[in-house]
């Protein structure tokens, strides 16, 4: 089956309605929680002649519910069910909608989120009409597995799950393994506090993941795949399952796909609830029905994964890039971004920032542009203090480094990491000791307890920071803190323990004075820590 033949399978009803006058209501989790489904129903009733549909996340979630009207391209904010008259008024008089958030939309570059907020996530037809499955059918009909892998290698795509391992290299390793059975896994266990990139993609454009996985499966020779989704994401799970069913209906999943001999079965598995289950070896154990704890690598999953068969595991966003790389070519993709970090990255902006929400930007963008141009800066006339990237595995970056380009190497150089895309902005009222304590507390409760440095180090670091925030710390505690942090970093078994000290070490590196104020003068410059007997 060619893409043109697939298009012919689509029922006329999806083509007929005038595309030009669409009203799109966000029905991703953020807006849905605000009652956007009611808004959608009302608008459908009020405008029977226009195409009114539910779409995925539009990005500016903090101003939800968002309603976008075409052809104007304007976005109505705070469209609550009880403001329906006002919404109708705006739709009839679009010129009244302000565009104060123009910068938010304009400075972004969308590959992964291309369809987010544009297509109905529950309709495979809309996905197909937007070039959906075109890349996969091209691979199946025209390209050899080697050619596909070469494209991915040449694109320079690196894993978006946090580590940034070259995707093409991983694919070729699994492809080279001689094995009758190979598995494919999509890691959608997203557990960083403040991160919701993968959830938004699954809720807004689930077929993009299926297509990316199909291409990967064909390229490496896998016939079975799993999407391992956090159980706390019911909407994403529902939409993904619906998408799988529809893809099967169109003969894009299952046996003899698109009339060829290629078979691929995709299943959804629900996460066991622990953060560490997102670590690849723990995730594999969990899929096998065992307790989800990490095991030492090597062997890497690429050699020995599910039931000891070669297994390719990639993140949601990694798979979401694949179809566009095939459609537009590796050269096009590699022209975006920096020397070693290609393409775009999706970030979830949160914390003390005006525009909290989901953004996609080219790699190499300056932190300043991301936070102040797209993010709109700090609310309430406060000063910027630091930004935390990489969640509990990352570190904080102070204002001196706002000119740093966002790419894998630069962030590591500053003691942080790219991570999966959580970006928490902190203003002058944030105490960095308290912040470090928050993240280590998270790691303390998420440590699986298998290896001694992480199991004990997280507790010890927490206790020390807790002491300091209570005004009971001393200089020796700081030395012990650094010693433990370094030991954990160098000797822990998995990424959780190896990176858990990052928030502590980076806060101490850039805000040393603040730590010393706490221990020497019982003073919290941000005024957050309440000491017995008050400040100073």
């Amino acid at each position, binding site marked *: 089956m060619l893409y043109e033949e697939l298009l012919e399978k689509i029922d006329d009803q999806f083509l007929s309605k005038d595309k030009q006058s669409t009203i799109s209501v966000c029905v991703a989790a953020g807006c849905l929680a605000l009652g956007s489904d009611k808004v959608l129903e009302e608008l459908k009733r009020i405008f029977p002649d226009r195409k009114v549909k539910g779409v995925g996340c539009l990005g500016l979630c903090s101003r939800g519910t968002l309603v976008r009207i075409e052809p104007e391209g304007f976005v109505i904010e705070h469209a609550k069910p009880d403001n329906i008259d006002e919404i109708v008024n705006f739709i009839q008089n679009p010129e009244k909608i302000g565009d104060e958030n123009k910068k938010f939309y304009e400075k972004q570059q969308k590959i992964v989120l291309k369809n987010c907020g544009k297509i109905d996530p529950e309709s495979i037809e809309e996905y197909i009409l937007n070039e959906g499955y075109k890349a996969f059918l091209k691979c199946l009909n025209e390209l050899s597995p080697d050619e596909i892998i070469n494209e991915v290698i040449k694109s320079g795509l690196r894993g978006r799950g946090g580590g940034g391992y070259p995707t093409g290299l991983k694919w070729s390793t699994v492809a080279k393994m001689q094995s009758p059975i190979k598995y494919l896994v999509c890691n959608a266990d997203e557990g960083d506090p403040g991160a919701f990139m993968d959830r938004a993609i699954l809720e807004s454009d689930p077929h993009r993941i299926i297509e990316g996985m199909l291409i990967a499966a064909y390229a490496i020779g896998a016939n079975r795949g799993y999407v391992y989704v956090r159980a706390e994401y019911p909407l994403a799970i529902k939409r993904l399952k619906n998408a799988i069913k529809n893809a099967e209906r169109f003969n894009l999943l299952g046996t003899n796909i698109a009339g060829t001999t290629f078979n691929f079965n995709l299943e959804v598995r629900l996460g066991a609830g622990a953060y560490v289950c997102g670590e690849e070896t723990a995730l594999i154990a969990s899929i096998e029905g065992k307790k989800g704890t990490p095991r030492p690598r090597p062997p890497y999953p690429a050699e020995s994964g599910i039931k000891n068969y070669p297994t390719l595991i990639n993140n949601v966003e990694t798979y979401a890039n694949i179809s566009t790389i095939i459609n537009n070519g590796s050269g096009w993709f590699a022209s975006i971004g920096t020397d070693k970090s290609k393409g775009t990255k999706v970030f979830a902006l949160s914390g003390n920032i005006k525009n909290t929400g989901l953004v996609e930007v080219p790699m190499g963008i300056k932190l300043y542009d991301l936070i102040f141009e797209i993010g709109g800066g700090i609310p309430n006339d406060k000063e910027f203090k630091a930004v935390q990237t990489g969640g509990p595995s990352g570190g904080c970056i102070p204002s001196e480094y706002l000119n740093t380009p966002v790419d894998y190497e630069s962030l590591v150089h500053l003691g942080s990491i790219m991570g999966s895309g959580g970006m928490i902005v902190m203003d002058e009222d944030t105490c960095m000791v308290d912040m470090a304590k928050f993240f280590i507390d998270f790691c303390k409760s998420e440590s699986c307890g298998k290896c*001694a*440095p992480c*199991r*004990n180090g*997280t507790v*010890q670091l927490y206790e020390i920071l807790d002491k300091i925030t209570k005004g009971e710390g001393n200089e020796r505690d700081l030395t012990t803190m650094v010693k433990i942090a370094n030991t954990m970093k160098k000797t822990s078994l998995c990424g959780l323990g190896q990176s858990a000290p990052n928030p502590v070490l980076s806060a101490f590196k850039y805000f040393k004075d603040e730590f010393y104020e706490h221990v020497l003068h019982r003073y919290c410059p941000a005024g957050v820590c309440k000491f017995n007997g008050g400040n100073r």
Partner: protein
Amino acid sequence: MKIKTFTIDGVELSGREDQTILEVAREHGIKIPTLCHLEGLTPIGSCRICIVEIDGKRFAPSCITKVEDGMKIVTNNSEITEYRKTILEMIFAERNHICSICIANGNCELQNLSIELGMDHFEIKNQYPRCEVDLSHEKYGIDHNRCVLCARCVRVCAKIEGAHTKDISGRGHNARIITDFARGWGEAETCTGCGKCVQVCPTGALFEKGKPVGARKKRDFLNYLKIMRGQ
């Protein structure tokens, strides 16, 4: 089987590709401290005491890391010692160790390690967790105050005895050794009473009632087992 060549502490050595750094080191009389490792049991690399430095840039547990061509392995320097000491100190602080009243006093691998690593003072704060002592089994007891979570007991019970009585339950610092469905050891129906777990336990956590550890523990019995089976 391929032969690999590498250096340990500057000395050129070779070993089979399936050998770990620890195995080769021990064959050549190079001492590397270990805790969770016990010959005859599947290694799990969890205590991290046996770390060595590889190629001057990364640290890896020698008990599970296979030798590779060209590796430059260092088994001891000030950085390694600092990490080992910190890990060990944290293991001590994790539970309630009072050697003077412990049945394992004088025959404890944890105690021996602290002597070996020259731990003369402790900086890390004790956690003082509340831990139970389970004496419900007719012959044996477990004192969680002295457990280092090395999982030797879990492994010997599952892999050698085949009983699968012991397991670890709980996450992070709440992890505890359990028997069957976390009931008293005496109620564990799968337990054959073989005592293998008691023999391999490095500390005073597992013990035979009424006997001091010194008189009892035969931690190298697995080696004999291996030899007897011709493995």
